[in-house]
């Protein structure tokens, strides 16, 4: 280890600034050190984790909201909603039925019209 020199009066002045640190700052430095030695976790990374969890929860809430709203027929454009898509995937009907849906709807209308007294 090399001998350290420096400028004595500068060292004295700055050492006074170190000695003048208040108890709160010393305490926080000590806490931070213990935190680092205990788990290698910084305050910043804990904060980041907190934000990640909060962000995830918010995204999940938004997704749930979108699904619920689309299930309430609030879609004025007539395009299939997300909930309808889920119904489609979950049903046991043949896909052919959905491909020719307009034809079957027409057939259904015609059939009902014929049966009506």
């Amino acid at each position, binding site marked *: 280890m090399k001998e350290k*020199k420096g400028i004595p009066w500068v060292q004295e002045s700055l050492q*006074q600034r170190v000695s003048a640190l208040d108890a709160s700052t010393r305490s926080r430095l000590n806490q931070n050190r213990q935190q680092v030695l205990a788990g290698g976790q910084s305050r910043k990374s804990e904060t980041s984790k907190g934000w990640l969890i909060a962000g995830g929860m918010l995204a999940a809430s938004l997704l749930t909201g979108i699904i619920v709203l689309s299930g309430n027929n609030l879609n004025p454009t007539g395009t299939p909603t997300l909930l309808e898509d889920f119904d489609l995937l979950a049903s046991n009907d043949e896909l052919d039925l959905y491909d020719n849906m307009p034809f079957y709807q027409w057939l259904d209308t015609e059939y009902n019209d014929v049966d009506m007294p």
Partner: protein
Amino acid sequence: MKDLLLVIITRHIGLHRYDGFLSKKQDKTLNHDALNRFFAKEEQRAFVMARIALNNPDEALDVVQDSMLKHFKHYASYPETEWGPLFQRVLQNCINDRLRKRSLTSRFFALFHNTKDQDDILDTEADSFELMPPAIYDTDDFAERFENLLRKLPARQRQVFLLRAWEGYSIQECADIMGCAPGSVKAHYYRAQKKLQELLTDHTFELAGETP
């Protein structure tokens, strides 16, 4: 190839120019007690150094903690005798990263912040120059004023001055810590001392109630 990978990894974690230290043998035994003692010895000086550079106690606390964390993760297994310069390197890089982020933010929001001198590399040979002490320097009041005077130095000059004059590192050690050439360290140190001498002269006049 191995060296290239090490440089990439160390750059990725926000540290720069490790070539001097990486080749050394590592002591694999982690010693928490020794680290605790080392951090306890260094943290207050490191805090004051960061506070001078950043002029913000909260940011200085964060920087010191980040530095301890990086040192703990990457250098705890190195020999204790090497911890001092390694910790200084990490600390200085953390401070520089903060200053750089602050500079980018302020540029983005078009706020005034002079960063001109941060990348100012000087190649001139520095003459031997001795910073003369003021008449009265052993008071708390002067120490506080001196801290404020140091903030008036450009970042690189302040960094060199603190490492040389306060921490007592050699030119070569400063160059290793700061990741620049010894010639640049000499030039920055010379400029820092000259500037401080001027400021201290003004300061003395100010204390005496006269105008320079």
